[in-house]
């Protein structure tokens, strides 16, 4: 039970005090967390990205081309000001443009072409047939230019039930994840800190 573990354990209990009700102890712990995590984030971003990817190439290696991203980066920081925040739209446009440009082929390949191919299954067993029907009926459910009636409506209805099965399994897995997190914290409190369980 060293001092570091005890501090971590006290902070853990401070967060759990929220279970009784929202209270100043919880609020204090929460704000410590906010401050520390923002500080952490700033340090990692500077030391792991801005220094090796901008400062060193520009100031140590003297590669002058890096003046352009440096200026754009500074323009981005102007977002904090009221007067010049519009200048930050230029670097923002670059990031958004790049993101859009790379997203199109990526979605086309990984989410459309590959997923379509994987659905082109021989209709030789129940599972394959269910997969094809489910994919198509979900697509029909998200079809907006036609009213859901007749055979089309029945298909859409099937789609919503398949969606419910998906949401159900997601529900189950999400519950599982939340409980795992609690197990981890209890293992910490009873094991690492108090040494009751091993």
């Amino acid at each position, binding site marked *: 039970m060293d001092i570091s573990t005890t501090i971590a354990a006290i902070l853990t209990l401070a967060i759990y005090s*929220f279970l009784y009700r929202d209270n100043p102890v919880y609020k204090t712990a*929460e704000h410590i967390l906010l401050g520390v995590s923002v500080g952490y984030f700033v340090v990692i971003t500077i030391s792991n990205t801005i220094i090796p990817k901008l400062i060193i190439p520009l100031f140590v290696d003297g590669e002058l081309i890096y003046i352009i991203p440096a200026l754009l980066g500074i323009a981005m920081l102007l977002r904090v000001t009221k007067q010049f925040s519009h200048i930050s739209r230029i670097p923002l446009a670059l990031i958004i443009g790049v993101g859009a440009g790379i997203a199109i082929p990526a979605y086309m390949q990984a989410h*459309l*072409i590959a997923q*379509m*191919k994987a659905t082109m299954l021989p209709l030789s067993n129940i599972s394959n047939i269910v997969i094809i029907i489910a994919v*198509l009926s979900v697509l029909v459910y*998200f079809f907006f*230019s036609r009213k859901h009636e007749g055979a089309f409506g029945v298909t859409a209805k099937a789609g919503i039930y398949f969606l419910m099965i998906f949401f159900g399994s*997601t529900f189950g897995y999400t519950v599982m994840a939340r409980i795992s997190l609690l197990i981890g914290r209890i293992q910490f409190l009873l094991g690492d800190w108090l040494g009751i369980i091993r």
Partner: protein
Amino acid sequence: MTDKVLYIHKPFLILLILTLIPFSAQAAIDTYDTPNDGGNSITVTWGGEVIAQSRDKFTSLDIQRQKVAESAGWETAAVLPVTDSVFVDDSVKDNIPYKYRIVFSAPEGEALIFESEPVKSSPQFFNTKRLNVLIGVIICCVILFYYIYESRKGKKFYLRPIGGLQAIDDAVGRATEMGKPILYSAGRGKMQRVATIASMNVLSSVATKTAEYNTPLIFPNSEPVVAAVAQEVVYEAYLKAGHPDRYNPDDVFYLTDSQFGYAAAVDGIMVRRKPATNLFIGTFEAESLILAETGNSIGAIQIAGTDSTIQLAFFIVACDYFLIGEEYFAASGYLSKDPMVLGSLKGQDWLKIIVGGAIILGAVLETAGIGFFSKLFGIG
């Protein structure tokens, strides 16, 4: 393509390198410019009966190369396991002819050498393996822009009724009848998120109705920017409805950016003011659970709309109506009547027909044992 094969003993290897005796065997070594790349690369492959038969005898495999023009000596490009049958040499220069040879050797001194014809590397301007992606992108472009163009020209497209939207209308009416307020939450998303922007469209429509019916609309926010935008949106809606006097700025407010702090505070509001209807429309995270639970326990009609599948799973069992992902965006587009969004939706519907049709065709052909169609959908 013609190859030279040679059996030699190791002590004489160096000597024999200078006096290679041509030996014609079945196509065993093949070299070519690596396709679909930026240049500086040659692919060497080898196989055939001779190699297959004698592979077990050898313990090492050297890939050697030579610049033809300089008639310099052979340099080792790589040492590979004897079971390999392909090597990509990424360290060559473009437009210079190279010769390759593969040297299998055994500890007893036996060796087997194959030599290739000269080959050059060059860069390509189009990656042929990605042709299907290009076709897909072109199809999307044509269809989407056609419908966006038509829509902007003023053509009206039919949009099916969306259950959750109708429910919102009814819920406003119900709250008015009961004389209770409506609670609206956009979750914890930043303003730039698509789901948050869509939420503002829904908010505007809801606010127009609450203005008409004079029903209080409470909107606690966890994002200062969203709060500011929401105040504008609600006031504008009340103004348009002709009842700016009914707008209460204290009901659209910034609460806190703390996740659970926000949930706890909204819970408190629900318990105190007992809204008849809760609308959870926007970007939600883990706090959704707490909000929906309390809403349920006070007996409010709850309607949720979000693009987060995880939170939807909880909303579906805790709310009376819900808008799932795309449906939510469509609803928002419908309310905002933005021709760009509506045209885009129509175009996406056509693309869904194409995707569905291709899947059916592919499945039928696969069932019939014809595999060429699905092969067109390979990625690389």
